[in-house]
C-alpha cells in the first residue's frame, strides 16, 4: 500500500494519516521554538540586491508531528548526504544488469557487503547549463538550479537538499542539521544564497561538541550543568542586540542578520535540549574519543582514517537523536588532494591522466571504500530488529560524472539504507533517456515525507519521482 494519499483539494501527495490544514505544520510566519521555519529561509540576497528565490514549492504536511517522519518501528527517519568531489568514471562505475541482483562494477566493489541495501541510479543528468566547471554540477544536483553568480563568485541559488529536508524532519533535536567535512570545511550545504553551512573537520572538536562535557547518556541521573541556563541568558541578550541592530540596516544586511539570528536560536534550542532529560534510546552511548591528530603521511592527508572517525561520531549522534539530517563531505569539488600512491592531485589527475585513467579509478574505488566504512558505522548501531542504516536514507553523489570533461550526464547517485522501506533497496535503476537527476531527488524527498510539488527550476524543474525507486 502506498504510504501516501493524493489530497483531493491540493492534488498533492501527503502521508497517510495526516489531514492538511489542521494537523499539519504548514509554513507560517510564526516563530517555531527552534527558529527554523522562519521565512528567512525563502529569501536571499545577492550582492546587495534582494532576490526572490525560485524555491521548490514546498507543501510540508508532516511538519514535526510526533508520528510523522517516523518509521513503523518507532525510530525516526534520518537523512545523510554523503558527497565527494571530482566525480567518477562511468566506464568503471556503472553496474551491469538491472533491478535486484545487479553486478557491482569495479569502483563499487568495496560496497559488496551492502549490495542488498544499495540502490544505484545511473544514466541520469543534471539539467543545468554547465557554465561553471564543478559548481554548476554541484548546484544542479543539490538544488536543481543553476548557481548564482559566476565561476569566481558563485553561490547556491536556493537551499541544498539537506536543508530542504531539515526544514521538515530536523526539528526537535539538538541539531536541526549537522555538517561534517573531512578534506575541507567548505561543505556543500547552503541555507540559501551566501549562506553556506560550514562543516567541522576536526574529529576531536566534533567529539567534544557532541559527546563532551554537556553530554548525558540516557537514564543519567547527573543533573544538567547550571551554566546551560547562564549561556541561554547570554544568547537571549545577544538576540536582542541582533534585533535592535537589524532595524538600522539595509535590506541585504537585515537578511544576513536574520540568518545569524536563526543560527543563534538553534544554538539556544540545543542548550535547552541539553537541559532536558536525554531521549531514552537503547543504542545511545558516549562515542569513543577519536585520535587527537591525524598527521599527514608522505604529505598525504589521512582521508580514510579521518573519515572513519567522523563516521563513528555521526553514527552515534544519529543514534542518540542529536540530529536527523547530516551532510558529510569527504572531499570537495575541485580538490587536489593527494591520495595514497597517487602521482598527482585528484583534480589534476582527472584532467591529465592518460589512457583509461587507472589512478582516477583507484581514487574512486578508495572513496567507495570510505563510503562502505560509513555504511558500516551506521549498520553497527542496532535499532529494533534492524540497524540505524535501515532507518536512514543515505544519498551519495558528486558534482560531475567524468571529471575530465565535467560531464553532467551519467551523474553518479547511490542510495543506501532506504529509510525503513521508503525507497527500493538493492536495485540498479538505469535511465536510458538521460532523465533529470532531479527525479531521484523528488523520490528522496518523498521518502523522507517532504512532499514537493516540484524540485528545481528552469530546465531542471521536475515534478515526478522515479517510479522504480519509490517503494
Amino acid at each position, binding site marked *: 500500500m502506498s504510504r501516501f494519499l493524493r489530497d483531493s483539494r491540493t492534488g498533492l501527495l501527503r502521508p497517510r494519516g495526516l489531514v492538511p490544514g489542521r494537523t499539519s505544520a504548514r509554513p507560517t510566519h510564526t516563530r517555531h521554538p527552534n527558529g527554523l521555519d522562519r521565512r528567512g529561509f525563502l529569501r536571499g*540576497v545577492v*550582492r*546587495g540586491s*534582494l532576490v526572490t528565490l525560485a524555491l521548490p514549492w514546498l507543501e510540508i504536511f508532516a511538519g514535526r508531528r510526533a508520528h510523522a517522519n517516523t518509521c513503523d518501528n518507532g525510530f525516526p527517519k534520518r537523512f545523510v548526504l554523503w558527497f565527494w568531489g571530482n566525480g567518477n568514471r562511468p566506464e568503471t562505475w556503472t553496474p551491469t544488469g538491472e533491478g535486484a541482483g545487479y553486478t557491482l562494477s569495479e569502483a563499487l566493489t568495496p560496497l559488496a557487503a551492502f549490495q542488498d541495501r544499495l540502490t544505484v541510479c545511473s544514466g541520469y543528468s543534471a539539467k543545468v547549463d554547465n*557554465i*561553471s*566547471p564543478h559548481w554548476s554540477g554541484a548546484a544542479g544536483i543539490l538544488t536543481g538550479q543553476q548557481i548564482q553568480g559566476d*565561476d*569566481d*563568485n558563485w553561490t547556491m541559488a536556493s537551499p541544498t537538499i539537506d536543508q530542504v529536508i531539515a526544514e521538515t524532519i530536523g526539528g526537535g533535536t539538538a*541539531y536541526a*542539521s549537522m*555538517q561534517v567535512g573531512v578534506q575541507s*570545511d*567548505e561543505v556543500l550545504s547552503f541555507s540559501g544564497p*551566501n*549562506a*553556506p*553551512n*560550514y*562543516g567541522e573537520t576536526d574529529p576531536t*572538536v566534533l567529539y567534544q561538541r557532541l559527546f563532551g562535557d554537556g553530554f548525558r547518556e540516557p537514564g543519567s541521573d547527573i543533573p544538567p550543568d547550571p551554566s546551560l*541556563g*547562564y*549561556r541561554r*541568558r*547570554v*544568547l537571549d*541578550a*545577544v538576540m536582542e542586540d*541582533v534585533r*535592535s*541592530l537589524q532595524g*538600522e*540596516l*539595509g*535590506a541585504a*544586511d537585515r*537578511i*544576513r*542578520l536574520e*540568518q*545569524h539570528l536563526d*543560527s543563534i536560536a*538553534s*544554538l539556544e534550542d540545543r542548550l535547552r535540549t541539553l537541559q532536558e532529560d536525554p531521549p531514552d534510546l537503547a543504542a545511545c552511548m558516549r562515542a569513543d574519543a577519536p585520535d587527537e591528530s591525524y598527521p599527514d603521511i*608522505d*604529505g598525504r*592527508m589521512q582521508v580514510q582514517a579521518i573519515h572513519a572517525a567522523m563516521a563513528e561520531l555521526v553514527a552515534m549522534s544519529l543514534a542518540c537523536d542529536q540530529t536527523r539530517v547530516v551532510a558529510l563531505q569527504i572531499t570537495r569539488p575541485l580538490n*587536489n*588532494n*593527494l591520495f595514497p600512491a597517487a602521482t*598527482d592531485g585528484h583534480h*589534476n589527475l582527472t*584532467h*591529465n591522466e592518460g589512457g583509461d585513467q587507472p589512478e582516477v579509478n583507484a581514487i574512486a574505488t578508495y572513496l567507495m571504500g570510505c563510503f562502505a566504512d560509513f555504511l558500516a558505522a551506521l549498520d553497527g548501531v542496532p535499532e529494533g530488529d534492524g540497524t540505524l542504516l535501515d532507518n536512514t536514507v543515505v544519498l551519495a553523489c558528486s558534482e560531475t560524472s567524468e571529471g*575530465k*570533461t*565535467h*560531464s553532467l550526464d551519467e551523474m553518479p547517485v547511490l542510495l543506501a539504507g532506504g529509510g525503513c522501506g521508503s525507497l527500493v533497496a538493492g536495485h540498479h535503476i538505469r535511465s536510458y533517456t538521460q532523465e533529470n537527476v532531479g527525479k531521484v531527488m523528488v523520490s528522496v524527498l518523498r521518502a523522507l515525507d517532504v512532499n514537493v510539488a516540484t524540485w528545481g527550476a528552469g530546465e531542471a524543474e521536475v515534478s515526478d519521482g522515479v517510479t522504480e525507486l519509490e517503494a
Partner: protein
Amino acid sequence: MTSPPLGAKLTPFGVRLKRPVLALLVALLAACEVDEAPLSTPDRGIAPDVVPAAPTLRRLTETQYANTVRALLGDDVVLPASLEPDAEEGGLLSLGAATASVSSLGVERYEDAALLLAGQVADEPARLATVVPCTPTAADDIVCAETFVRTFGLRAWRRPLTDAEVTRLVAVVTLTGGEAGSFNEGVRYGLAAMFQSPHFVYRREHGVADPADPALRILTDYELATRLAYLLWAEPPDDALLAAAAAGTLTASDDGLRAEADRLLADARARAGVRALFTELFALYALDDLAKDPTVFTHASAELGPAAREETLRVVEDLVFDNPTDFRDLLTTQTTFVDPRLAALYRVPAPDPAGFGEVTLDASDGRRGLLGQASFLMLNAHATRTSATLRGLFVRKTLLCQTILPPPADVDTSIPEADSTSPTLRERLQTHLEDPTCASCHQLTDPIGLGLENFDGVGRWRDEENGSVIDASGTLGRTDFADAWDLGAAVRDAEDLGPCFTAHLYRYAMGHAVDPGEEAHVAWIAAGFAESGYDWRALLMDLVMSPAFRRAGALDE
C-alpha cells in the same frame, strides 16, 4: 600624461572592458580579450564626485578577530582554535566578510570563543583587573557591573553603549552573579555576551543621513575611527583614537582626520595592517595548508609555506616602511629575507642560522621580486607540477586586474604527458595555444607562466625539464622578456599595475567592489599614486582623506 582613449571605460579593476552584457556574449565565442595597449593614467586634476556604494555590515575576518581580542585582553591571550571561515569574494576575504552570513557552526564557534576568552578574564585576576575597574561589594553589585559594562563595552564595541544596551548587559552580569554567588561569574557571562554580540562581531559603517543630501550618509566619528584602525592596523581603535572620536575631531576637519591617520601610520602597528592586506590579496593564508608531494619536491615541508609567506611580507614591509621606494619595485627588488630553509631552497647562504635575515639576490640567482618568491611560485602550482596557467593567471588577475574567464565546462583540458617530442611544458602546452577555444585565454596566461618555468612547483631553480633546457622567453604586452628576471621588470612597468593595486586597496578598505559611481574617483586616487612615485603610504593617506572613505550611499531598501 594622456587621457584614456575615447570609448574606453575604466572598470573597477582598472581594465578596459567591453560593456559587461556584451562581454558575456563575447565570452562564449572568444573567451578572453584583454587590450594589451597600456593603460594611461588620467590627469589628476580635482577629485571627481563620488557616489558611494550602499553601506554594509562587515564581519571581522579571522585575522581582525584575533587582533581585536589581543588588543582588548593582551598579546598573551589564548585565541580560539577556529572561527567561522572567511569567505573569499573577488579575491579578497574582506569582501566576503561583507556579504556572507554566519552559519550555525559559526555561531557555535563564536560561543566557544566567547567563553574561552571570558574565562581568561574571570579566572585570571591580573587580566580581570584590567577589564573590571572597580571592586564589587556584592555578587550582584549593580554599580560595579555598570562601570565594567560601560568601560569595556566602549573598547569592545568601539563606541559608547546606549543605555538600553547597558541595561541588557548589566542584567546578565548581576542576575548571573547573584545566582552563582560570584561577581566574577557575572563578569564571565557578561563578557561572553559582549563577544558574541553583533556589535562586536560586525563593524557597522552606516553613518547618519547627510542633511544636505539624502542620497548620502556620513560616517560617525566612531565608525570612521573603526574603519581607519582596521585599515591601517587591522585592529580596533586604541584609546587615543576613541578619545579623538569622542571629541568629534575626525569629522570636524580634514586636519583632525589627517593627524590621527598620520599617527596610526607612524605606529609600528601599521606594519600589521599592511601585512593583513597583502596576506589577503596574495592569498598567503593558503600557504599554511598547501599540498605538495615531498617525494617530488624534496624541499617541501609543512614549514616551508609559512616561511615563504613571511619572506613576502617582510619584503612588502621593507618597501613600505624601512626603505620606502616605488612600490612597483615589489616586482624587481633584489632584496629579500630568508630563513635557513628558504636559503637552502634558493641556494643562497643563510644570513641567520636562527631565523630570517636579509640577502641581496643577483642575476646569477635567476630570481628577484615577487615572481621569484616561493610564496607566489608555490601557491600558483600543483602538488606535483608547476602550472604556467595559474602563474600567468595570478599576474593577469591579481597584479593587473584583468578578467580571465574559466575554461568552458565541457572541454577536455588535459595536457599531454611528457615524451621525447615534448619534454618541457612549453611543448606540452602547445594545444592550449593552437586550439582556438583554448587559445583566446591561454595566450594571455601561459606565456607569462612559461617565463617562470625555471622555478619548480615549490620555487626551486632548475635549468632543465626532462633533460631539455627550459626556454623561458616570451612577450608581455609589447615587451619581450628573456627569462623570469626580465619578466619581473615587464610586469613592474605594466601601466595597469598601479591602478590595479589602488583598486584592490579601495575594495579592501571599503568592503565592496568598486561601484560605477566610484570608478572615476578610484582612477583619481590611482593617478595620485602615480604622482607620488608609487609611495604606498601616500596612497593610504590619499584614500583615507578621500570623500569616499568618510561617506556611504543610501541604505538599500
